[in-house]
């Protein structure tokens, strides 16, 4: 991950937005670890 955002310089609103976006993505990744199952492909 290499996002080009200077945390110190962004506005208050953007800081909150950033937090919420990153937190939501971490929750998504958590879901992938705990509930992803094997998916059999039907294509040959």
């Amino acid at each position, binding site marked *: *991950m290499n996002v080009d*955002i200077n*945390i110190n310089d962004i506005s*208050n609103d953007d800081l909150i*937005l950033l*937090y919420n976006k990153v937190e939501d993505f971490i929750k998504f990744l958590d879901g992938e670890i705990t509930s992803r199952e094997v998916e059999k492909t039907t294509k040959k």
Partner: protein
Amino acid sequence: MDDEVESVREKINRQIDIDKEVLSALPVNNKKNLKAYKDKVAEVKKEYEYYLEKVTQEMKRRVIKIESILPDPKIAKLEQEIQYMDKIKLLNKDITSFEKMELDEILFVLKRFYKNNLELVNDAIVRVLEKFRMVGIDLKGNDFNYSLYAKEYMTVFLEEAKLGNSNSPKVKETFEQIYWKCPDIIIHIEMNFRNLYLKNEKVIDKYFNTASKQIMKELGLNQEEAIAKYNSMNDKLIDMKNKDTALILEKFLKGKEVIKNYEEITIKKNYKKLLGVDQKEIEDDKLEEYNSNIFKMSNSLYEYKNYLKFKFIYDEILEIYKSNEKFNTQCNGIRKQINKLETKLFKTNKRVESLANHKGLILKLFNKSNQNNNKLENINTDANERILELKELYRKYETNKIKSIIVTKLNDSSTIYDALVLVAPFYSFLVETIIKHFEDISQDNIRKTIEEFREFIKYPYITIINNIKISEEKDITIVIKDKYNLCDINVTKGDLDEDNIDNLILSVESICKYNYLRHSKIKLDDVNFVLQAKKILEV
């Protein structure tokens, strides 16, 4: 992509999309691949968690920076000075030393003992004793000569109070013993204290005269100058508190203010309501002038609203003033009756005491088999009836005293404010007026109403009711409406009705508070950020 125009939202969305795509390209068609996929997800998650930690740290840093703004230390200093100045109430020439000693307020607990418990009554007795001590009178058991029961109880009470426990088992036991013989025991004690005040009135008056001179010497001011200084200090304090950045922020953090009321759309709507034009269309100079008038209007509305709230007190004063009765003469007459009846009472009590020694008498009183018991019981019944008669006379005396003060101190040139200020120190008058107006009001609400009334009286921006004479019949709503219409502010008579005034106050105060925030060291954006960040950081 040009980084200068790409927003933070776009950057993070892009990064997340990239990482999602990388992950979605990984096969998950068997256990081995699934494991490799999950390991990769865990790796990405770790990176994002590390990034989240940096974001959190920055949030904390900003919150700490904003919250590090402290209230102006001059505010606490001014509050202390004002508290010190509170003693100027002793300079008030319109009240007697009974009120300066706060006896009217403390004895009220005994007067309404049936609404309090024994511990509260005993605490009130301790306070009365302290007040007498303060003015140089150290009361002893023998001073409680209203009845043998009063003497018995107070002798034990004083002993126990000296040991630091005025609510000891011994006091409660003594009360228990006496009460069934004399359910009016608390009335006896209350009347005894009232008698002790009258008996020592000259000494107490002298104490307060000396105290007043001392206060004026310390302040270097006379009464009028002291009141003017006190008002000016209160004025300054209100202004400082309204404008203080830390105090403004605190109101938001405590939920007393909400962001919604300060948003552009709300402020715009309120300006349009009051001025009839868009805020943006007004030149800066003119806007400052409007803002200044809106601030004054906020003060006027506070004054008027509270005047309406406490108008029932003013109506009561006016009724007494217009009655033209000679309350002073009545007062003197009642006092003479009290003296006469008390002289008889004390004579009887002395006679009873000399019949037997104190201990023997009490035993006789409680020993039903004694032959002399009937005679003693009769004497006690007579004494009790006399005390109840005296109770009525003292009540009448108190009421007439205050009415006499109202009639003599006010005249046709006095203002509504003069009338309210005059009665503010008279606790019993305020209580009676409140109960007359709100029949089922609780003790706590009586106290609260009096506190709020006395707070209102201290308001330094009173400009309406201190300019209307009690002899005038003025429609205050028209006075206010016309004044602010002349300042180009839209307000109708209907807006000032009791049902509508709160809405008007909300609009006006919203603009005032918005301007206080605008001139402070923080912006609405900072406040909003702190509120959101604290919610996140507390989870």
